[in-house]
């Protein structure tokens, strides 16, 4: 990791006020990351997406933290005007499903240009957009530039969305299940694009996923979340040697192609996993 971290998070907490009382969705999450591929894994409701959104100030919950800093600059209590200088420009986010995240009544090209409106204009912006589409391995950038979202397949739409997020050349990309809606081969091709970008553009990537096998083979490090807390921090390639029974349980659950079992092991949830970590 670099000496100068991209992102520092210390004791991040997110709370929601609901009619049935306060929900403490993220509890004391701390991590530091540089130019690397950091995974946040866990089941639905574990707080992984809210953690990602909090970094961009996009969660509707109440965010508190001892430190939430991007290149040393605190992200806590920023005014909307200050957020606009960061969101989409220096930190960008790719959502799960291109069907719902692309504007259906705007061409892909117009959406790409809009993403870089404050940075580049006119012919230069157009050239830049076509270059980005080519960078995410779209074979015919001119056609996709003119296309409407409904004319693209899921894989194409997701690539167009990644291109859009990269228009401003962000330093940190938060990808929330960016490939879950894609077919396996397309999924790997999209990941290869992200991998390239991390290497060539020295970008940091937060990869939010529920797929431990993918994280193990794709990311550098992994945070395992359960009930709003980070239970374990691991080197991704060493996920199979995880200590925590929750991580081990998650790894054992999915059916495997070359290791067939008559029954699948079921996760036995221990109430102690809910208790504050480290106390």
């Amino acid at each position: 990791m670099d000496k100068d971290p991209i992102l520092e998070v210390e004791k991040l907490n997110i709370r929601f006020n609901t009619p049935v009382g306060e929900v403490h969705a993220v509890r004391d999450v701390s991590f530091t990351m540089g130019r690397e591929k950091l995974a946040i894994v866990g089941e639905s409701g574990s707080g992984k997406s809210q953690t990602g959104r909090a970094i961009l100030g996009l969660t509707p919950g109440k965010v508190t933290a001892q430190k939430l800093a991007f290149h040393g600059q605190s992200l806590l209590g920023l005014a909307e005007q200050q957020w606009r200088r960061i969101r989409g420009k220096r930190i960008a986010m790719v959502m799960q499903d291109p069907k719902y995240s692309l504007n259906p009544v705007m061409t892909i090209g117009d959406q790409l240009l809009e993403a870089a409106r404050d940075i580049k204009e006119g012919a230069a912006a157009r050239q830049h957009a076509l270059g980005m589409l080519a960078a995410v391995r779209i074979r015919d950038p001119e056609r996709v530039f003119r296309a409407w979202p409904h004319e693209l397949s899921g894989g194409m739409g997701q690539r167009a969305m990644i291109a859009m997020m990269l228009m401003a050349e962000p330093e940190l990309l938060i990808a929330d299940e960016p490939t879950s809606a894609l077919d396996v081969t397309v999924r790997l091709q999209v990941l290869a694009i992200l991998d390239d970008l991390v290497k060539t553009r020295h970008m940091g990537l937060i990869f939010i996923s529920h797929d431990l096998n993918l994280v193990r083979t794709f990311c550098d490090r992994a945070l395992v979340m359960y009930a709003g807390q980070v239970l374990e921090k691991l080197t991704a390639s060493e996920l199979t040697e995880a200590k925590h029974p929750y991580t081990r349980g998650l790894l054992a659950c999915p059916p495997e192609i070359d290791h067939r079992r008559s029954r699948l092991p079921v996760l036995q949830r221990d109430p102690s996993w809910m208790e504050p970590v480290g106390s």
Partner: protein
Amino acid sequence: MTQPMIEIEDLSISFGLGKDRVDAVKNVSFTVAPGESYGLVGESGSGKSTILRALAGLNPFWSGHMAITGQKLGAKRPRALRRLVQMVFQDPFGSLHPKHTVDRILSEPLTIHGFDDVETRVRAALDRVGLGPVFRFRYPHQLSGGQRQRVAIARALILEPKVVLLDEPTSALDVSIQAEVLNLLTDLRQQLGLTYVLVSHDLGVVAHMCSRLSIMRTGEVVETASADELSEGRLLHAYSRQLLIASRGYDTAAIAAFGDF
């Protein structure tokens, strides 16, 4: 030879006319023995769900030959034949009526098919899928994804079918919940002697649940294999092998070698 439970011969399904015509399924044939679990694998648009919908009677516009327990399927099906084939859908959020209680969801098919003892059957159905009686008067939004899928399975089984069609039954669930639902489906098949046709994009799920499978691409079956052949990697077609490699995780060298199919 014993009578196959499901026979499909030369099944073709197309949508649209003229230049907009899409051949979604092209001359597909396979048979499934009673009590067997058969898998259909492929990427989106390969036609696997289209076959399932035609088998379920949800799409009457097909050509070829299909039969269940030797009874030929036509455009119109007698009610007794419809009862034999039930389906579980992919999305447990979209497949249950949001304004019906679990009780109503489960009793409606019984009323339609003229069953007696509705209450006893509803209780038994909930019990069978591991949901207690407390769930009977809940609405779908009060249930988790896994619980909803259990209700969907209970609804499919309440008419005592012989064939259950499973369309990506666990792809919307967390892996830990997926394991519970797959174990439940395995148990039910053994207890009730059911025949399954399972559609999935996940080779692991198919290897676990099925004894044989067809791998599909753009409406055609490219390869039919046994689960043993799949798990030992003995697939013959280049497309099937690529699918198998892609299922194993991220590997830059393998991705660079991917072909366009």
